[in-house]
């Protein structure tokens, strides 16, 4: 069966989802989801090891060799992405049990897990495939389930957030379809490897340039790349806690992966950066995103929304690394995929603990919380360190590689980039500090409910979050430090992935 691991990676969750939808008890559905997420994590690890040992794996679905049939193709880049997505899935699912039981109607929990597993299926399907149209199909599986999951938030604004996401996401998907169609009409194929060969033979061409543009804009919509990020803050703020933790640390990462795949594998780095001058667009966008969104984050009263804006800024860091179009820059971008998943996963899960006990994540409501929920707040602070990029955290590793990448380049403007990375780290310090100040140095508010979310349950009665929530949260927080202190594994994988994308033998 090991030869079939690439397809099992997707088919196991795909088969588990209908099962989740059919059972009548939430806990059974959760058990299925848990078994699924851990199995997929195991498969992803095996795949990564196999790719490291033997090189890229190709799998012909239906027995039809590409380009006639659909091909699954796993190389270092997507094997790494698979590990990220499944690892987050494996940590969030145990966390979801308690959090979901509180936030979602009991009768709907089986369906909730069905949607959750479908979202995982879609994301894995995008990451593993080597066929551009297949990307679209699984993109829609993950998107449709994400819209439904986000709409389940308790605030009615979750509904409008989901609607807005649905509209923006569908525009993005349609743009991607247009791009795929234009590539197809020029080449006659949908297979990525095949496309890369045929597009290179074609030479400069207006249709291909427009296809490139539509794909970039379409994926950027899914990615929430500044200035196409409007759907993201609301979606992250109002979605159920477990959903925010999962989607924030996986969906945008997979979108970044799609961008990498199209820019470097399908169109080729030479076309993307030398012919289309992609860096001239991406670099300023990334810089503006990092700076403006960090600034906006500082002024948020809702901590979830603050972290959502911070996410848009962090996506800017990834794009910054990519737009350097060098091995070091790409390594930084890919490393930050992994690292940011750990950071934001941990932070949003800590916030989920707050939500579970306090019923609100407004800064106001978190005053004096450190005494009542010491472990939760410690997790938040530790995750915050990582977000800022203090030494011994993964955030530091990302920024280290970003700065290295910038210093490799000549010219004064790259010193500005370095300065901006350092400045925005200070800005992250400011917004994290606002939470720390409220939680550690201010008195708890009066007994009446501050956030208005859960009447009759003021902060005075608040106790530490249950272990079922704390343990998964701390697993991610510890990982932040583990991979921050010993980054040899992640840096090695990201480095080889970057070299393979740039077309340099690892």
């Amino acid at each position, binding site marked *: 069966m090991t030869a079939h691991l690439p397809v099992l990676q997707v088919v196991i969750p795909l088969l588990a989802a209908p099962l989740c939808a059919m059972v009548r008890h939430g806990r059974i559905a959760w058990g299925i989801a848990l078994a699924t997420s851990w199995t997929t994590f195991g498969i992803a690890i095996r795949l990564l090891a196999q790719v490291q040992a033997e090189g890229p794996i190709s799998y012909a679905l239906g027995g039809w060799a590409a380009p006639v049939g*659909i091909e699954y193709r796993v190389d270092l880049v997507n094997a790494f992405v698979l590990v990220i997505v499944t690892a987050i899935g494996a940590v969030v699912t145990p966390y979801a049990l308690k959090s979901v039981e509180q936030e979602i109607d009991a009768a709907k929990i089986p369906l909730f897990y069905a949607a959750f597993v479908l979202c995982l299926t879609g994301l894995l399907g995008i990451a593993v495939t080597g066929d551009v149209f297949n990307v679209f199909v699984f993109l829609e599986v993950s998107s449709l389930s994400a819209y439904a999951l986000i709409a389940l938030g308790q605030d009615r604004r979750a509904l409008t957030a989901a609607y807005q996401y649905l509209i923006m996401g569908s525009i993005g998907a349609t743009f991607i379809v247009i791009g795929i169609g234009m590539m197809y009409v020029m080449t006659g194929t949908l297979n990525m490897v095949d496309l890369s060969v045929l597009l290179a033979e074609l030479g400069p061409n207006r*249709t291909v*340039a427009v296809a490139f543009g539509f794909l970039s804009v379409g994926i950027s919509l899914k990615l929430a790349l500044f200035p196409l990020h409007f759907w993201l803050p609301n979606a992250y703020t109002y979605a159920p806690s477990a959903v925010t933790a999962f989607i924030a640390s996986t969906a945008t990462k997979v979108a970044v992966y799609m961008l990498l795949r199209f820019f470097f594998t399908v169109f080729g780095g030479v076309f993307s950066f030398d012919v289309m001058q992609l860096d001239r667009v991406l670099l300023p966008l990334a810089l503006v995103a990092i700076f403006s969104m960090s600034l906006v984050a500082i002024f948020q009263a809702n901590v979830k929304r603050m972290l959502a804006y911070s996410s848009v800024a962090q996506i800017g860091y990834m794009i910054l690394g990519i737009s350097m179009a060098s091995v070091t820059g790409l390594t930084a971008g890919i490393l930050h995929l992994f690292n940011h998943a750990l950071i934001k996963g941990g932070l949003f899960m800590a916030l989920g603990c707050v939500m579970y006990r306090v019923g609100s994540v407004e800064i106001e409501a978190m005053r004096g919380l450190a005494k009542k929920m010491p472990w939760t707040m410690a997790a938040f602070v530790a995750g915050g360190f990582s977000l800022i990029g203090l030494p011994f955290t993964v955030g530091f590793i990302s920024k280290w590689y970003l700065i290295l990448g910038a210093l490799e380049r000549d010219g004064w403007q790259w010193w500005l980039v370095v300065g901006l990375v350092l400045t925005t780290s200070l800005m992250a310090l400011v917004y994290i500090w606002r939470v720390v100040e409220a939680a550690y140095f201010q008195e708890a508010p009066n007994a009446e409910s501050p956030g208005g979310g859960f009447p009759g349950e003021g902060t005075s009665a608040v106790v530490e979050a249950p272990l079922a929530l704390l343990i998964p949260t701390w697993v991610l927080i510890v990982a932040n430090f583990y991979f921050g202190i010993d980054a040899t594994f992640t840096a090695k994988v990201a480095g080889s992935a970057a070299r393979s994308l740039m077309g340099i033998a690892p």
Partner: protein
Amino acid sequence: MLAVTALALLKLRNLFAVAMLAGIYSLLSAGLFVALDAVDVAFTEAAVGAGISTILLLGTLSLVGHDQKKSTRSSVVPLLVVLVTGSILVYGTLDMPPYGDPGNPAHHHVAPHYLEESEHEIGIPNVVTSVLASYRGYDTMGETTVIFTAMVGVLLLMGGVRRREGSATLDGKPDREGDAHGG
């Protein structure tokens, strides 16, 4: 015809008429699909666009009312976005192979394999079915999963919630009483 329907859709404010015209738009495009040799696509578009979508739209309208209020928002920015997008697309067609030319690259790479080999590899005459269910059968499995996902989503969103008189929106969050099995 299609253009007239589409433009009428833009102006109409009675949403019932909008739903009907959307169905007509689908039917007209189904006719166009037949003219373009895509009989399977025409069949599906007619069933989906004029059938399911219209039923869903009418069902929704019966729940939410059917008059669109006059919008006060400016339409300059959307118009600009549309014009730019459209011009880029037109620019993109300039290097496209001409319509209907049998020499187009799209017809010479993978497609001939389906047309020439499917008879002995699959053994059924409808090549669209062969490609759909076998050569690219995995896509179709994904498609089935998408439909299933839509069901899960609709059941999650609409399942069993009963509005209690007066209490539905007072606390600013949707009512979550009821059970999903009740339907």
